[in-house]
Each structure stands twice: as C-alpha cells, then as structure tokens.
C-alpha cells in the first residue's frame, strides 16, 4: 500500500516537473527575444512609471519594456497593465498612471480632463504601435489570392459561400479557383482584432457589413475559435478556410495572407504597404498631438488599409521631473528605429519614417 502511494507521488512529481519545465521554456522563447540595441542615445534615468490601457498593444509594449530594460540594465521600473483602452484613459485622467495606452485618441472632453491632470499642460496622443490585420486563407493549389473589402464583407456575412464565386474570380484573373466551400473562422472571445476588422469592413463595405463595429464578432455563419492561436490553428487545418488574424500569427503559422485590392491591384501585407497606409492617414491633432485619422477606404497606391493604430497618451508637461525623464527616455526608445523594428516579432509593423520623426519631435518636446 505504502509503496503504491510513494510511486504515485513520485510519478506526480515527475509529471509536474515536466509540465513546469515546458512552461518556462515556452515563456522564455516568446518573451525573451530582444534585438541588440545600443544604449547610446538613451539617458537611462532611474525611477518608476506605470502605464495602463489597450490590450491590443500588450505584446508590443512588453517587448519594448524588455528591450529597454536590457539596453538600460534595468535602471528604471516600467509597468504596463493591459486593462482595456477605456480603463487606461480613465485612470490616466484620474492621475493614477503616468501614461495611457489606447486604441482611439482622446476625445475633446477627455482632452480637457487630461489637461487638468497634467497641471494645465496638454495631453498628447502619440501613435506608436501599428497592428495590421491579416486575412489568412488555406486553399489547396492557390498560393496568391487577392480580395477586396466588398468580397471580404460578403464572405464574412455568409453571402459568398464558394471559393469559385464570380466576385472572387473577378479579382483573381488567371488563377484557377476550386469550388471548395468557404469556411470562415473568427475569434470566439471578445477582442480588439475583431473590433478592428469590423471597423474596417464598416468603413469600406457598409452596404454589406451592416452591424456596428464591436469586440464581439457580428458576422453570419462560420465558426468561432478561442484566441488568435485557435483561429490560426483552424485555418491551417482546414482546406477552404479563411480567418482574420494579427499579422504575427499568420506569419508564425506560415499561412497564406490575402492581398487587398483597393482599386490598383492586389497589395501585399508588409511593412512598406502598412507604412503607405499610415502616410495616407490625416493627422487631425494639433501641434504635437498626433491623432491620426486612418482612411480605411484609401485608394493610395500600394497601401494596405486594414491597420490598427494604438496610441500612448502622455502629458506634455506637468509630471514630476523624475517621472518625466523616464517617460521621455522610454518613449524615445519606443519611437526609435531599433525599437520599432523589434516589434515585427510581435506582429506590429514599424512606423513609417515620416511619422516616426513627428512622434520623436513630440517626445523631445515633453517638458
């Protein structure tokens, strides 16, 4: 009796050790990658700052924090709580955190509240994380697929049910499309990616995509899978599948990514095409407030329009000097070429140079 119990315990212990080791390994391989950057241009002040907000930029900001800490040998303590954009803005305006992360720029009312929190200095919206959406597909024998917003909306609303539909064929002349049924996979959990996709479809194909944008998927038909990894796995395993994913999940799983045709032929999803969409965006903020108005329906040549921009919201002045120094230095790294390029690991596209320069000017102007 005693022997059996001991064996059980030993087996349990062995199992849990294996499980634990597996966990630590995967954590290290996903979170620990940081590109070698010189701390040359960084001041690396000590102090601690806290940010809060958008869940969409969690991975990007964790990556930047890790890389900044590497470069500065952990001189400062920086924390980010991904609680959602609404909570981030609220707590930034209440003075509970030092910077906010948000999927949308401050509204006029929020700007007023933020100015009071920043001791009568303006608060600025700085676009720092650019997250393109990949429409991934799995279709035997088709290695290049071009779609447009209208066709995507029809697919997601269940109006196009076969891959050889004339609407798809019209965009893909010269490609033999099979008559495989279209199998849509979407996120079953509420997510910023879903919100972003529905915003894009609402702006570009409003007559087909009738629901309002929301974090919950409002399309018709298809199957919901948990998380980007669930959608990626399902698309990969199913012939005739299409789903929307954050960019990194599509590339990590080596899935086909549909090109988007905005009127001048198919545009591939890459750093360049995302940059062009951002360059086509209007800056609606004044001075150093860099609120962007993305034109989802842009016809700019070579621009990939299905992009989400998230902001860091900072005080242009009014924080105590120690915190200001850390915020400035951290954001300087965030907006640096090396910082932005390192984000491609987590599925973000780097800011285009012109916009990066503007963001940097704003950061250096923080008092």
């Amino acid at each position: 009796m005693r022997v059996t119990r001991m064996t059980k315990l030993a087996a349990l212990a062995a199992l849990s050790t294996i499980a634990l080791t597996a966990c630590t390994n995967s954590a290290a391989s996903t979170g620990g990658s940081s590109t070698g950057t010189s701390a040359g241009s960084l001041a690396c002040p000590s102090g601690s700052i806290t940010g809060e907000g958008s869940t969409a930029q969690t991975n990007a900001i964790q990556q930047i924090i890790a890389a900044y800490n590497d470069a500065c040998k952990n001189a400062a303590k920086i924390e980010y709580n991904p609680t959602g954009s609404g909570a981030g803005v609220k707590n930034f305006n209440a003075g509970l955190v030092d910077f906010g992360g948000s999927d949308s720029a401050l509204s006029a009312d929020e700007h007023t509240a933020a100015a009071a929190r920043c001791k009568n200095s303006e608060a600025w919206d700085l676009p720092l994380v650019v997250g393109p959406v990949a429409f991934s597909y799995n279709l035997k024998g088709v290695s290049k697929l071009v779609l447009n917003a209208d066709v995507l909306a029809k697919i997601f609303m269940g109006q196009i049910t076969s891959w050889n539909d004339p609407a798809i064929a019209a965009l893909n002349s010269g490609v033999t499309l099979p008559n495989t049924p279209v199998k849509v996979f979407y996120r079953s959990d509420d997510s910023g990616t879903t919100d972003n996709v529905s915003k894009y479809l609402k702006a570009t194909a409003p007559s087909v995509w009738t629901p309002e944008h929301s974090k919950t998927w409002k399309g018709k038909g298809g199957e919901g899978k948990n998380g980007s990894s669930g959608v990626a796995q399902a698309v990969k395993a199913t012939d005739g599948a299409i789903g929307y994913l954050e960019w990194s999940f599509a590339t990590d799983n080596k899935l086909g990514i549909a090109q988007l045709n905005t009127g001048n032929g198919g545009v591939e999803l890459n750093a360049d095409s995302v940059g062009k969409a951002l360059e086509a965006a209007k800056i609606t903020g004044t001075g150093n407030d860099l609120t962007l108005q993305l034109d989802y329906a842009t016809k700019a040549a070579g621009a990939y329009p299905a992009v989400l921009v998230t902001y860091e919201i900072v005080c242009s002045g009014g924080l105590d000097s120690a915190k200001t120094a850390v915020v400035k230095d951290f954001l300087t790294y965030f907006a640096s070429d090396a910082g932005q390029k390192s984000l491609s690991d987590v599925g973000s596209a780097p800011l285009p140079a012109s916009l990066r320069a503007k963001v940097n000017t704003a950061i250096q102007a923080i008092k």
Partner: protein
Amino acid sequence: MSTSNLHFATIKHGGDRSFRAGAIAAAVVVVLLVLFVGVFLAVLAIPSLRRDTVSFLTSTQWNVGTGTLQFGIAGLLWTTAITSVVAMILAVPVAVGTALLVTQYVPPRVGSTIGFLIDLLAAVPSIIFGLWGLKLLGPFLGPFYDWLQRVLGWIPLFGKGVESTGNVLTASIVLAIMVLPIVSAMSRNVFAHTPRDHIEAALALGATRWEMIRTAVIPYGRSGVIAASMLGLGRALGETIAVMIILSQTTTEGINVSLFAGGETFASKIANNAQEFDSPAKTGAYIAAGLVLFVVTFAVNAVARVVAERRVS
C-alpha cells in the same frame, strides 16, 4: 452504522473538546464558503438580470457589449447538458468495466497497476486534454465523423453541424476521458468492498463468474456507481478550458441538436470572455450564467448525495 447512539455528553477530555471544536469550525467554514460563492454570484448577477430585455431562461441570444442587454442561457444549457450527458454515456460503461476487471478478474497486483494508470489520467491538466482534442483527436476522428454523418445524417442528432472537428462529439469524448478516473476509482472502491459472503454464496450455488458479478457485485455496488457517475457529471458540467479550446462557437440563432454542432458551455463561455469584462452590466450577464451552472452542479451533487446515502442505510 447508525450514528444516533453516540453521546457527546460523555466527552470529558480536553483533546476531545478541541478536536470537536476544530471539526465543527472546518465544517462551518466550508458551508460558509459555498454560501458566499452563491451570494457573490447572485449579487453581481441581479442588476444585469433586471435589465435583460429577453427571456433569460429561454433565449439563445447573447448581446451584452453595448446598449440594451439581451442574453439568455438556453443555448449554453443545451450544449453543457449534451456534452456532459454524452460524456457520461461513453465514460460510465468503460469505468464500470475496468472497475469490475480490476476487482474481480485479475490478481490484486495487476489490478492496482491498471488502477494506477487510470488514475494518472486525473493528473493531466485540462489544457493538455484540450489541445490534444483539438489538434490530434478531432482531426483523427474527422473521417469517422464524415461517415457517421453520411449514414445517419437523416437523424437530427447526426445532422449538419460545423465544418471543423471542433464539435460537441469531440468535446464529449475528451470529457469522457477526463471523468473516467473519477468514476473508475469510486466504482473500484465499492466493488472491492462487496461482502466476501455474498460472493462465496453465489459461487457455492454454482454461479459462473459472470453470474456471480451480476447477482452479487453489481447489485451491491449499483448505488455507489450512480453516486460516482453523478460526481463525474458534476466535473463534466463544470469543465472549462478543454471545452473552450475544442468547441467551435457559432453565430446561428437557436439550438442545433446535432452532435456535430458547435456551441458554448456555461464555463467555456465565461472563460472565453473573462479578459474583456469591461462593464458591470456585461460582467453581471456572465455571472448570471455562472449562477445557473452553480445551481445545476449543486442539484447534480445533491442527487449524488441522496443516492449515496440510500446505499448506506
């Protein structure tokens, strides 16, 4: 067996008193915990339930993001019930079969080894079961599902469901494997305690081994097996991560009764969206669903208790 002739008044020693006090305290804490969970769920759920604009019990809608709240649990209740019931149908015969084998057919040493291996299943985390079901079991069973659907598709239970193998049947099979160790371990226990006299009496009357099992072991263990199954059912009803990973969500209105349909259970729905609880109204809606699961599990466990008690008396 009866407890009515114990007299606490005879307690005199300090050790007895303190142990009794400790035992009572432990029991009180557990009861209070259950009450607190129930009250917590109710308090958070009631404001949202008041604002619900559709029937909470019969609607299959779930719109809790913005504006008016529309949420009902009919779909969740169906998927939770069908996955768990199918899981039990698959698991109980296997569990009882192995329990009989282990206790009646093989030498104790071999039996305990088999029992130990089955118990090991309980040590596998549910996320592993989920990933295994999604990536291996589902795709492996895909051709079998296609065949089943072709042959029996005219029965609604085997009608058209989702395209992938993330369906109710895959979830049920994985749930069956997960509850197997619970049902099997408890069944082994009751069968092992079949009175020697009963067994020997049956054999002395010329019963074969199967007749002996049928007339002595199974009747003796029946209520114990039922209680074990109920405990397993409670586990299946509340299983979260594995179901969440395997089962595909669908947007279709109403309930698809097919085993090949997707869907969400109470627990998987809550877990799937817990990270985005951004308003009290939304949280309340999910908590209300949790409250129903709490009540259902409570009822199942209560039935298990009643059955188990009946065996003792």
